[in-house]
C-alpha cells in the first residue's frame, strides 16, 4: 500500500525484565498515511509506548529484541538499518517528544543550545549564526513568547507548557515527516493541554507531517486523530478510522474502555429524601476566610519577604450528605485546602467548623475525638499504605485508639466487613501492601478512611493515578458507599468528566481563591466566571 508513510507489520518486541521475558508488543499491525494522525490508545502496560519506541528504535539493545516484524518507513525497513542509518533517520525524518517536559530536557544546557544541536547534527553545513536564527524562528513558530530572549534560558526557568513547546520546536527543527508524541500533554494542566494540542494541529496543517500520537485519553483521541488503534497487553485489538472506532466499537475491550469513561458512566439513582431540604440544614463543614500562607525567607537574616498564598481567604460551606467537587489546575491550592480542613496543614488564619465545633486552634488531645468525624484518602497508591504493616493492623489500629470494638477479635471482624464493603476479600487482611495492585490499594485506603465511621471524607485525587476502567469502578464504589452511610465527600480532582459524573456541587479554585461555586449542573452547564469557562472549554470531549 503505497501512500502510507509508515507501515508496521507483525511487530514483536520482547523485553528482558528481572530475568523474565515480557512480550511488550505482540504481533502488531498498523499504518499511517501521509499527513494524518494515528492515535495509539490503551491502559498502562498495553505496550503503546513500547511500540512507539520500537518504531524509532530507542529501546536499549541489551534489553529489547525484535524477533519478528517490519517497520516500513517510506518503503525502507527501519529494523534492518544499521546504527548510523537509524541515527540519520532519528531527529531528521522521524522525531519524538515525550511525556515529562521537566526531565526530558538537559538541565545544564540552554534551550537554545539544545535546539541548535538537533539542527546542526543533521544539517552540518549550517553556520552557528544561521542556526541561532532558525532556532528563534522555530521558537516563534511554537508560539513561545519573547523567543529571542528565551534562547539563552535554562529549562528550569520555563513552565511546563513552555518546556513542551521547546520540545516540539526541537523535534520540528529539521522538518521531519513523522512526529511521534508519547503522551505529550498528560503531565500538563488541562488549559495548557488545550493550547498545546491546538498548536500541534496547526503545525501539522502547516507542514503536512504525520503524527503517531500515544495517549490514554479518548477525548484527546477525538480531537486529534483520523485513525485509532486500541492496544491491550501487547496486542492491537482494534484499528480503524477514528469516528468508527469511537462511535461503533467492535471489540469488547474497546467497548469496555469507552463505557468506563466518566461521561458514559451511568449514575445510579440516588434516593435522598433530604435533597430538597439541603439548604435548610446547617452545613456539615463551614469554612470562613481560611488562609494558608507559607513564608518565603530571603536575605542575610532570613527575614520573611513574601508569602506563598496557597489558600487565600476561602469561604465555603459543605452541606451534609453531598459530594462536593473541588476543581482546579496544579498550584491552585485545592490539595492544601483539603489538608487544612483536616488540620494536617496548620492554617495561618480563619475558621473551620465541623457540625458547629471550631477546629482551628485546638490541641492534639482536644482534636482527637473530632478526628473520628473526618478522614482522608490519598492519591498515590504507592505511598498511602505503610509497607511494614499488615492490612489488618492498618485497619484495626485507628479503631483501637478510638475505642471501637470491645476486643481485638471484634475489631478484626469489623475490619473484614470493611474490606468487603470496598469489594475486596476478607483474607486480604493478612497480606502486605506490596502484594496489591494500584486499584486495590486505593480501595484499602478507602477502607481505612471508613474504619472510624466518619461523616466526612476528603478524597484527594484518589483516581488520578489509575487507569480509566479502574477509575470507573472506584467512582461507582464511592457512590454506593455514600448512599449506604450517608457520607459527605470533598472530592478533589482536576478531571472535569469525573466532576460531572460524581458530584452534586462544584467549587472551582484558581490561585488560592474560589472563583465559582454552585450546583454541578449549573457550574458545568452555564459557567459564569471567565476562568471556569476557559477550563471547561479546554476539556477534550468525545462528542464533537
Amino acid at each position: 500500500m503505497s501512500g502510507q508513510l509508515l507501515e508496521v507489520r507483525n511487530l514483536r518486541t520482547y523485553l528482558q525484565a528481572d530475568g523474565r521475558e515480557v512480550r511488550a508488543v505482540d504481533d502488531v499491525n498498523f499504518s499511517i498515511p501521509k499527513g494524518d494522525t494515528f492515535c495509539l490508545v490503551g491502559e498502562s502496560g498495553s505496550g503503546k509506548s513500547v511500540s512507539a519506541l520500537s518504531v524509532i528504535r530507542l529501546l536499549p539493545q541489551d534489553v529489547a529484541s525484535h524477533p519478528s516484524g517490519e517497520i516500513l518507513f517510506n518503503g525502507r525497513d527501519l529494523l534492518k538499518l544499521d546504527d548510523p542509518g537509524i541515527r540519520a533517520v532519528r531527529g531528521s525524518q522521524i522525531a519524538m517528544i515525550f511525556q515529562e517536559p521537566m526531565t526530558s530536557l538537559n538541565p545544564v544546557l540552554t534551550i537554545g543550545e539544545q535546539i541548535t544541536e538537533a539542527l546542526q547534527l543533521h544539517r552540518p553545513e549550517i553556520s552557528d549564526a544561521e542556526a541561532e536564527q532558525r532556532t528563534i524562528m522555530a521558537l516563534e513558530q511554537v508560539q513561545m513568547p519573547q523567543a529571542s530572549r528565551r534562547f539563552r534560558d535554562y529549562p528550569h526557568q520555563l513552565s511546563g507548557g513552555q518546556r513542551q513547546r521547546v520540545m516540539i520546536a526541537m523535534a520540528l527543527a529539521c522538518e521531519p515527516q513523522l512526529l511521534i508524541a508519547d503522551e505529550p500533554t498528560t503531565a500538563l494542566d488541562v488549559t495548557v493541554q488545550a493550547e498545546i494540542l491546538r498548536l500541534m494541529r496547526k503545525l501539522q496543517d502547516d507542514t503536512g507531517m504525520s503524527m503517531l500520537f500515544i495517549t490514554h485519553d479518548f477525548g484527546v483521541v477525538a480531537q486529534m486523530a483520523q485513525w485509532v488503534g486500541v492496544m491491550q497487553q501487547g496486542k492491537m485489538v482494534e484499528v480503524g478510522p477514528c469516528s468508527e472506532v469511537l462511535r461503533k466499537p467492535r471489540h469488547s475491550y474497546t467497548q469496555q474502555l469507552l463505557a468506563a469513561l466518566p461521561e458514559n458512566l451511568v449514575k445510579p439513582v440516588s434516593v435522598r429524601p433530604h435533597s430538597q431540604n439541603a439548604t435548610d440544614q446547617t452545613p456539615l463543614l463551614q469554612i470562613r476566610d481560611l488562609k494558608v500562607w507559607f513564608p518565603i525567607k530571603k536575605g542575610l537574616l532570613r527575614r520573611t519577604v513574601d508569602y506563598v498564598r496557597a489558600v487565600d481567604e476561602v469561604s465555603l460551606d459543605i452541606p451534609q450528605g453531598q459530594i462536593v467537587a473541588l476543581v482546579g489546575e496544579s498550584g491552585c491550592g485545592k490539595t492544601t485546602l483539603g489538608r487544612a480542613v483536616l488540620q494536617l496543614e496548620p492554617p495561618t488564619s480563619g475558621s473551620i467548623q465541623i457540625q458547629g465545633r471550631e477546629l482551628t486552634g485546638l490541641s492534639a488531645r482536644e482534636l482527637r475525638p473530632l478526628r473520628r468525624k473526618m478522614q482522608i484518602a490519598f492519591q498515590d497508591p504507592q505511598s498511602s499504605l505503610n509497607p511494614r504493616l499488615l492490612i489488618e493492623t492498618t485497619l484495626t489500629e485507628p479503631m483501637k485508639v478510638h475505642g471501637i470494638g470491645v476486643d481485638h477479635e471484634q475489631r478484626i471482624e469489623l475490619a473484614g466487613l470493611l474490606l468487603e464493603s470496598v469489594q475486596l476479600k476478607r483474607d486480604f487482611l493478612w497480606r502486605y501492601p506490596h502484594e496489591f495492585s494500584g486499584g486495590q490499594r486505593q480501595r484499602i485506603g478507602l477502607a481505612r478512611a471508613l474504619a472510624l465511621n466518619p461523616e466526612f471524607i476528603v478524597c484527594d485525587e484518589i483516581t488520578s493515578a489509575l487507569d480509566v476502567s479502574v477509575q470507573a469502578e472506584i467512582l461507582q464504589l464511592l457512590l454506593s458507599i455514600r448512599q449506604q452511610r450517608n457520607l459527605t465527600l470533598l472530592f478533589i480532582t482536576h478531571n472535569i468528566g469525573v466532576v460531572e459524573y460524581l458530584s452534586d456541587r462544584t467549587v472551582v479554585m484558581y490561585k488560592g481563591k474560589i472563583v465559582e461555586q454552585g450546583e454541578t449542573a449549573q457550574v458545568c452547564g452555564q459557567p459564569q466566571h471567565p476562568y471556569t469557562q476557559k477550563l471547561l472549554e479546554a476539556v477534550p470531549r468525545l462528542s464533537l
Partner: protein
Amino acid sequence: MTEHAVSRESFAARIWRKTLDGAGVKVGLSWVALLVFAAVFAPFLANSMPLLMSKNGVISAPVLQYLSVEDRWVLATFFIALAVYRLPVGSAKRILLFLLGSALAAVLANLFVKPPVLVIYDDFRSAAYTETDWRIMPPIPYAPTDYLRDLGSKGLEAPLATEGHTHLMGTEENGADVLSRMIHACRISLSIGLIASGIALLIGVVVGGLMGYFSGIVDMLGMRLVEIFEDIPTLFLLLTFVAFFGRSLYMMMVIIGVTGWSGYARYVRTEFLKLRKQDYVQAAVAGGLPLSSILFRHMLPNGVAPLLVAVSFGVAGAILSEATLSFLGLGVVDAPSWGQMLDQAVKSSTFNWWMAVFPGGAIFMTVFAYNLIGEAFRDAIDPKLSSKAGVNR
C-alpha cells in the same frame, strides 16, 4: 486466638532475602561469623593451659578454672543471643530480652567469678601439667600474653622459624605467639566495632529524631551541633582524648562512639523529614493516632533501612579507628590488638613482614567483610543501580 494464615513474606523478610542473594555478602558474613566464633571461644582456642587433662585418674579442666570475668560474660552473652534468636517474639522484644539478659550476666559474673589473679604460664609447661595420663591442649598451645621466657624466646621471629616450637604466624617483639594474639584480638575488634557503633547510633538517632520531628529552633541548634562534631578532625580528637585521658579499652569505645554520631544524625533527620510527608504518616495523624505510635510504628521501621547500611560501614570505620590509634602508639597496652601488632612491623630496622601481613590482613578482611555486607544491604534496598539491574522501563 483464632488461627490466621500469614501469607507470603513481610517487608523485612523480603529485604533480607535480597541481601543474601550474592556471593560477596556470603563471604562477608562467613568472615564475621568466624570472628565471632574466635572472639567468643578464644580461651578455648589459644591457651597455654590444657583444655582437659587427667592426672593420676583425676580429670580436671584448668582452662575453666582460669576463665576471667570477661571470658565468662562473653560466653554467656553469646548463648543468650542464640536463645533469644530462637524465641518466637517480635524483634523489639528480642532486643530488649537480649540486653536484659546480658546485663544480668554481667552483674552475676562480677559478683561470683573470682579467677586466680596471677597466671604464670611457664607453670603449664612444668612437670605438674605435662606428666599426665593424657591431656587435650587447645589447637594453638600458647596464651596471648605468654611471653615464653622459659623457652628462651628471642623476640620477633618469622613464622615457623623458631626451632622446637611451631609458631604458625611467628612471634612478636615480646616473644608471644602471633596467631594466639590475633585470635584474642578478635574480641577487641568486634567489641569496639559493635559498642562504639552502638553508642554512636544511639546518640545519632536521638539527636536526628528530635531534629527531624520538631524542626524550628531544635533543628537549627541540632544542625550546629552536628556540624561541630563533623568538622572536628575526628582522628585528632580521638588522639587528644586518648593522650589526655589515658588508654583504656572502654574509654576508647565510648570516645569512638561519641565522635562518630554525626553521620547517623543526618541520616535520621533526612529520613524523618521525608517520612513526615508520606501519605501513610499523614493518614496516621488524621486518624488521631498517638505520637508514640506514629514515631515507632509508622516512621521508624520505614526509616531504618538506610541507617542499617550506615551502621555496617560505621562498624568498619570504628575498627579502623581503633587500629589506627594503636598504630600511632596510643592504643591499649597489654591486651593484644591488631593495630598494635601492625605498629611493630615498622619499628625495627628490618621489615617484619609477618607482623604487617597477618594483623593487617585481619583488619583488612574485617573491614572488607563489613563493607561487603553494607553494600549488599544497600543494593537490596535500592536495587536500581546495582550491577545486576535491568533497564528501568
